[in-house]
């Protein structure tokens, strides 16, 4: 690949985990918040 030198290095497992955590932590927080509110329907 000619352009391999100006693209990224291979991501490490740790980098992959950090990236997924970056999006999944706020998403989980939002889902838990919504679920807590949804429970009022059954309360």
């Amino acid at each position: 690949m000619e352009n391999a030198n100006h693209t990224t290095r291979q991501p490490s497992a740790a980098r992959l985990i950090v990236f997924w955590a970056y999006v999944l932590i706020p998403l989980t927080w939002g889902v838990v918040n919504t679920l807590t509110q949804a429970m009022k329907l059954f309360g």
Partner: protein
Amino acid sequence: MSSTTDSTGQAGSPPFFSKHATVAAPGFSRWMVPPAALAVHLCIGQAYAFSVFNGPLTKVIGITQSAPGDWSLTTLGWIFSLAIVFLGLSAAFAGKWLEHVGPRRTMFTAACCFGGGFLISAAGVWLHQIVLLYLGYGVIGGIGLGLGYVSPVSTLIRWFPDRRGMATGMAIMGFGGGAMIAAPLSVALMNHFKSATSVGVAETFVVLGIAYFISMTIGALTIRIPAPDWKPAGWIAPDTSHKMITRNHVHIDRALTTPQFYLVWLVLFLNVTAGIGILGQASVMIQESFKNTVTPAAAAGFVGLLSLFNMGGRFVWASSSDKLGRKNTYSVFFVLGAVLYYCVPSFATSGNIALFVLSYCVILSMYGGGFSTVPAYLADLFGTAFVGGIHGRLLTAWAAAGVAGPVLVNYIRAYEVAHGVAKADAYTMTVHIMTALLVVGFICNLLVKRVDAKHHMSDAQLAAER
């Protein structure tokens, strides 16, 4: 793959934001791409939570209550409407540009527009100029929404040719989930910033604008596109000669001349229309259907539950479409949706809240699933080369349904109530019309066939476009 050359003819690095600079190196993990897409979609999904600002924005002058000169809800309603219109327009018109410049530049432009839109809106609140909110969040923010929505989707499809549905489901799930983060976050920020002289909206807009710009930029910087000849290790493209999945590519402009594009447009339009009207009326509907049984707090819980199913359906249905097939998945949406819509009035009449709630949860999961399955449907029919642009143009169906759905639900209900129908029964006619729309959608979906080979691009045409 070509590298670039400078004016002296020497090879050099392509510009950072160019499409060539985003081509991944060999060995790059494709699992880095979904978080990059989610980083954008979780931000732009905030649009669904914009209504949390409506109340405080009606009290910018009066602070504790609306004062003369304060904006009305009708005036404020145009901000969201403009954003959705410009989402559809930018997705439709920028599709070709997106395919030309690649996802990094498009996503960064989306970050500038969406984040910048918030900052302009903050100035609008400070100066109490509604035009700045229309321009900021409505027009510029709306363009950011459209660009941000379509840009990572085609990239994901190229990285996951073996699981197109799952890949697009992951990103578009983020759009459904973004509101779940934005709503409580915005309320917390407004509470933090509010004072005797401010409702805290302008300050919240500034914080959100900066946060969304940073988050979307991180997504833009980490996105990569695969090399044209890349495929997952060990994966062999299945024989699709007898199926609707093509290995060829249809040009974005040519796609618009095929009946398949308009049939899928109708499929999306009818599926969205059936869900979007209910989403806006859910709280009122459950309270009127179960008078004296469902409190406003419980109704808010119902709305929350629908949001969860809307989000979850985006991932679950799109992923299952990889096994079921796109056409079969939409057939399930239309048949199951029509049956559930037909049954819902009887669940309300018999006082069966559990079945009423369950039915609407399943309906909303299919509403979300319709959004996330359609990019993979388009990739199957038209190939992956221009799927981002074709998807952008198809999103005009969303904008049209955004008008048709609420109009159907609100006006028919108002007509029924004006003609003496009890409020609890006023939704019966509406849901029967929804049932009929879903039957029409089922027929449109049945009519979708493989795209004729005369529309396919030759290798030379494809190479010229690339």
